[in-house]
């Protein structure tokens, strides 16, 4: 099963999820919610922006600069596909009622 590596990275997944559940948010809000540092968030946003998953809009509110972030329709589709594929992957993992994974199915057969 194909998993979008760009979305799969935990920090980027967190950023995309946060932006998916709001109409728009500024840099500070996403930084707080995703618990990332400024530098981390900036570098992940650059990658997501390059892929067309988020839209970064720099502007001013009065004299203060504000960077507003939005998820694009392409980013929404990517996240929805990722959630669906991960759900499929997890559903395919055979788990006993006790919660113990059946080793025989997961471990490769010994020669």
């Amino acid at each position: 099963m194909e998993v979008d590596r760009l979305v799969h990275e935990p920090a980027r997944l967190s950023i995309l999820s946060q932006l998916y559940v709001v109409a728009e948010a500024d840099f500070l809000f996403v930084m707080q919610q995703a618990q990332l540092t400024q530098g981390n968030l900036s570098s992940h946003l650059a990658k997501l922006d390059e892929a067309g998953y988020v839209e970064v809009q720099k502007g001013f509110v009065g004299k203060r600069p504000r960077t507003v972030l939005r998820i694009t329709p392409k980013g929404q589709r990517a996240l929805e596909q990722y959630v669906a594929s991960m759900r499929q992957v997890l559903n395919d993992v055979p788990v006993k009622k006790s919660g113990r994974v059946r080793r025989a199915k997961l471990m490769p057969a010994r020669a």
Partner: protein
Amino acid sequence: MSTELASLERRTYRTTDDGIADILVGVFFMAVGIAMSFERGLNVGIVSGLLAAAAFPVWRGLRRGIAEPRVGYVRLHAARSRRMRLGQCVGAAAMAAIILVGVFFTGGGRQVDTWFVGLVYAVPLAVVAYFADLPRWYAYAGVIMIERAADSLSGGPHEWLFWPSGVIIAAIGAVVLARFLRRYPIRERDVTERS
């Protein structure tokens, strides 16, 4: 929206709960109590209307000044915004309906029962609690009705009785705000934003 994302949306929405609206509602009831104490000087309806009209811009200003520098700016999901707007409409309609019923059954509203006065404020609070997903606002509606019951049982009307509920609501709002301020201290803004 999947279940996981829906719960994330709820959690994200909860971060905007700063207690400022609670403080304003508490101040509103204290002001109504003061207005009611003046038998002829102040009209409670006019005071309530003026305060309600001023509440939104004041709330917006306080949010911009206190909450946004801490948690940042966020515009809620379209579905959440629609639900909030619907809540405001239903709350206002409920308040208008109760006032009309009160006026109709009391021949012009001169002898309005203290219970009706409680309902006028408690029902919109409960409606806001439901639509804005703020469970403690149900308690505020309950406090108003308990207060009105106490007023009725003690041979009211005692106008000053709006004071305790106002103080209780504002105090709870202050606690929520204090927690919010502790949880979200002001952080340096993004370096790219400052450049």
